[in-house]
């Protein structure tokens, strides 16, 4: 057996001071010019010394256990915090979505209404875009037409509401596409007075979905029905203040027909 094979044993014996005679001499000779061996001897000596104190090792074990349990607790706390944060975010999103839905021009409401339109076109199934008209729309106000303050305002602005738009007037009654499309109602420049509902109906060669958009006489978009599946489109008279309105029937952003109608109050103003 060579001296090198004896080394681990010799290192241990050297540090235990049990290495004697020729072995000790050979070992010391090797140790003299061998830094790696010197390091090994030092490590062995330090290990013997540092691991001697059983008390400290026991304390170290307990410290490590406490550290581990703290890390576990932190991990659980972190997970709980993450869960709580996720819930808060979800709650905030819910509130935001509700808020958007409650706005008259909210995107979500528009989307929801478009979905409803795919099933049935009714009084509620369009988007009200004019804030002034919004409070009169829908179920809540179907019976009531206008309050006194509104009526006073109407008297003052009646002439303004009926003022025609020169650009729109040039488009009225024009069928802009070559395909077959005929408007049945409202015919001509219909004046709605006593009818409770304003009906829009048309014939077309295509079974594709059309969209009806209603504008006031200044070009403000008031109603966008989304894709119309069921004809006729029926709108409550009460949704409109007396005035001149324009409408356009659209398919894939192409205007098929541009028309107008009037809404007058019961007295014929």
């Amino acid at each position, binding site marked *: 057996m060579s001296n090198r094979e004896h080394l*681990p*044993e010799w290192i*241990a014996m050297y540090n235990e001071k049990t290495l004697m005679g020729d072995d000790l001499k050979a070992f010391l000779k090797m140790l003299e010019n061998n830094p790696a061996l010197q390091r*090994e001897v030092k*490590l*062995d000596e*330090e*290990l*013997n010394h*540092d*691991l*001697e104190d*059983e*008390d*400290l*090792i*026991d*304390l*170290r*074990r*307990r*410290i*490590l*256990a*406490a*550290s581990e*349990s*703290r890390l576990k607790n932190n991990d659980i706390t972190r997970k709980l915090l993450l869960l709580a944060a996720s819930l808060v975010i979800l709650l905030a999103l819910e509130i935001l979505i509700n808020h958007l839905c409650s706005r008259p021009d909210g995107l979500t409401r528009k989307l929801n209404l478009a979905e409803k339109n795919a099933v049935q076109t009714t009084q509620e199934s369009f988007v009200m875009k004019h804030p002034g008209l919004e409070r009169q729309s829908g179920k809540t106000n179907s019976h009531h037409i206008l309050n006194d303050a509104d009526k006073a305002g109407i008297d003052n602005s009646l002439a303004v509401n009926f003022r025609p738009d020169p650009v729109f007037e040039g488009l009225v009654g024009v069928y802009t596409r070559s395909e077959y499309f005929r408007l049945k109602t409202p015919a001509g420049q219909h004046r709605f007075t006593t009818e409770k509902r304003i009906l829009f109906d048309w014939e077309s060669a295509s079974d594709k979905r059309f969209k009806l958009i209603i504008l006031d006489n200044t070009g403000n978009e008031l109603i966008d029905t989304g894709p119309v599946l069921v004809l006729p489109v029926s709108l409550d008279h009460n949704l409109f203040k007396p005035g001149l309105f324009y409408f356009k029937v659209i398919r894939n952003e192409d205007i098929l027909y541009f028309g107008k109608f009037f809404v007058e109050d019961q007295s014929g103003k």
Partner: protein
Amino acid sequence: MVFYSDDEILTGLREKDPDCIRFLYKEFLPVAKSIVERNSGNHEDTEDVFQDGIIVLYQKVRGSKILLNCSLKTYFYSICSKIWMQRLDRKWRIQYSDRFVHEPVEEYQSNENDPDEAKLERTRIYQIHFLTLPEDCQKVLKLFLCKTTLKDIAIIMGFRDESYAKTRKYLCKNMLRKRILKDPRCKFL
């Protein structure tokens, strides 16, 4: 969690009470953190300094009762602070000694009352690796270091003879030695 007064902490530490050690972690780790992480240390350094600080504190209370003229937290702060400052200094010297440091290391030795932080670090690394050894290895090495004879080790451990006990001792120590030498922290020792 139970609250411990300074005296109760010292008593609990002397008895190595696990609850007291957990309490120390909760209450005293931020002390080490404030020192280390404000002075270019990271989370692992904080953990190391904290553990070394506990060991120093334990060594002080183990033999005799210590008389504090300040709160235990302040005392612990000073222990951790000394450990971390010495460690920074030592590691800086090891890393940059070729380029910047010309004075002999002895001139920078701290006074006798300061903890020997290099020894603390070395002991910590050795002990941590020792505690990762298989149970029977730990037991064999412990018996050996307690000067138990190979014959007795063989009997206690149920080995067939002392020659096998010697082989096992050698294998276990070698396993420990290899683990320690692989540890990157050892390059600073």
